[in-house]
């Protein structure tokens, strides 16, 4: 397969092609959607052993300065000033209407700078937005010459410990510099699969070397964006652009955990009026899990009806869950229908399919908390 010159490539592009990946355009990059093993095998490898993902398309940056957390708090509802050095937190960038511009991971590196990981499709806009807010209070340093690998699964800790013994003592959402197989990296114990694992930021010119180290381990399988999507869907994790966007508030998106306790009284973030009002007075729709009763998957934009045929919402992500061994979906419904067990109807190709609202996640998250 030849490369499309209009697409950007990650530092692992040659390795993906050598491994026989099917490359697809994603957020302006040529990315592996699957390897010859296939999405189900890659998904299962991540649930039972260890999978290696290339997520170098995502945006990485440092926000330098003692005021970095305060600057970022002006753009997000997260309590970031409380974030301790060496710890990571999930948050969202909100707009003035209380919608979500992007979701991101934030690390307090050492009290003097933050490390940010944002979505590929949003990174240019995010970084411009953050730099503008920072002014001369903090300095944004975008890191285009770094790759990002995700090592995920119940055996990720053993694979990682082989190359970096100190990684074993990290717990979920710990973060810090670490030498992995002799290569200097910045490592967080987190991910997007619902499993234990790590995300590893590494210089672009060392990325392939690092990836080959991991793939030499018998328990470690390369996995593409297809498995990444089915894993995160089973884990109940939203995908920006599908399940959350500029119109969905974090409260509607069932992400209220990302709104800090102090921020709930102080406010001071874009869209605080709407978001704090929704925390008090409720919302008109909520993100929920949806389990079709039959075998047919319900994809994004499938209409959700109540049992009388009235439209009550829309599926935002849906497909087949290899661990669930059946179709899984998430979407927004009116709050009156958000209780787990509520029967709903999904209109798939004009046919009504019975389904039930279920609690997320579909597959229990298995993060390592020590």
């Amino acid at each position: 397969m030849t490369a499309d010159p209009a697409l950007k490539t990650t530092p692992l592009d040659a390795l993906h092609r050598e491994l026989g990946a099917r490359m697809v355009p994603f957020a302006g990059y040529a990315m592996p959607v699957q390897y010859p093993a296939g999405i189900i095998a890659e998904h299962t490898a991540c649930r039972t052993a260890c999978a290696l993902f290339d997520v170098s398309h995502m945006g990485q940056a440092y926000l330098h300065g003692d005021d970095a957390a305060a600057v970022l708090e002006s753009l997000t509802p997260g309590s970031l000033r409380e974030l301790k050095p060496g710890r990571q937190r999930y948050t969202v960038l909100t707009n003035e209407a209380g919608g979500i511009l992007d979701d991101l991971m934030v690390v307090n590196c050492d009290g003097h700078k933050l490390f940010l990981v944002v979505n590929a499709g949003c990174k240019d806009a995010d970084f411009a937005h953050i730099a503008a807010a920072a002014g001369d209070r903090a300095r944004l340093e975008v890191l285009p010459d770094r790759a990002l690998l995700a090592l995920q699964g119940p055996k990720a800790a053993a694979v990682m410990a082989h190359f970096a013994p100190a990684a074993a003592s990290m717990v979920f959402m710990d973060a810090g510099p670490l030498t992995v197989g002799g290569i200097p990296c910045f490592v967080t114990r987190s991910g997007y699969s619902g499993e234990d694992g790590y995300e590893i930021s590494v210089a672009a010119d060392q990325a392939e070397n690092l990836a080959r180290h991991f793939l030499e381990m018998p328990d470690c399988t390369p996995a593409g964006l297809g498995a990444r999507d089915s894993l995160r869907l089973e884990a109940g994790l939203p995908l920006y652009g599908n399940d959350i966007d500029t119109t969905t508030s974090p409260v509607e998106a069932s992400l209220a955990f990302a709104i800090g306790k102090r921020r709930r009284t102080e406010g001071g973030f874009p869209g605080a009026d709407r978001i704090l009002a929704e925390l008090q007075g409720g919302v008109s729709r909520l993100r929920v899990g949806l389990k079709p009763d039959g075998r047919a998957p319900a994809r994004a934009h499938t209409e959700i009806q109540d049992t009388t045929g009235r439209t009550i919402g829309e599926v935002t992500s849906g497909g087949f869950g290899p661990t669930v061994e059946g179709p899984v979906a998430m979407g927004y419904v009116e709050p009156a229908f958000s209780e787990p067990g509520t029967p709903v109807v999904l209109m798939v190709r004009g046919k009504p399919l019975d389904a039930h609202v279920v609690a997320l996640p579909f597959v229990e998250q298995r993060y390592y908390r020590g």
Partner: protein
Amino acid sequence: MSQMYFTEDHEWLSVEGETAIVGITDYAQQQLGDVVFVELPDEGKDLVQGGEAAVVESVKAASEVYAPVSGTVTAVNADLEGTPALVNEDAMGAGWFFAVSLTDPKELDNLMDQDAYDAFVAGLE
């Protein structure tokens, strides 16, 4: 003795007399990846050449299967309901979709034979 025909949408037909058995090709199943659900037409349904006949769902996406010929559905492969992976394992055999009685055998003239289809696929890679 049955005769094989192929479409540019990567369906195969095995025609014997007035009846055609229809499935998707091995190339198609490789492109789709793991098949997790197949929606088949009801027996007795009248299909029009080029119209929607079935839907095949992989982990990632749903794809339409178009009727390669006009005709009435005489049988469907019930095994696909419980074991959709048959499409991956044996696309040209046990993973067949449905059978139709042909309305107009002349429609077969528009389809490809094995050699023409192989050349067509080679041109895609």
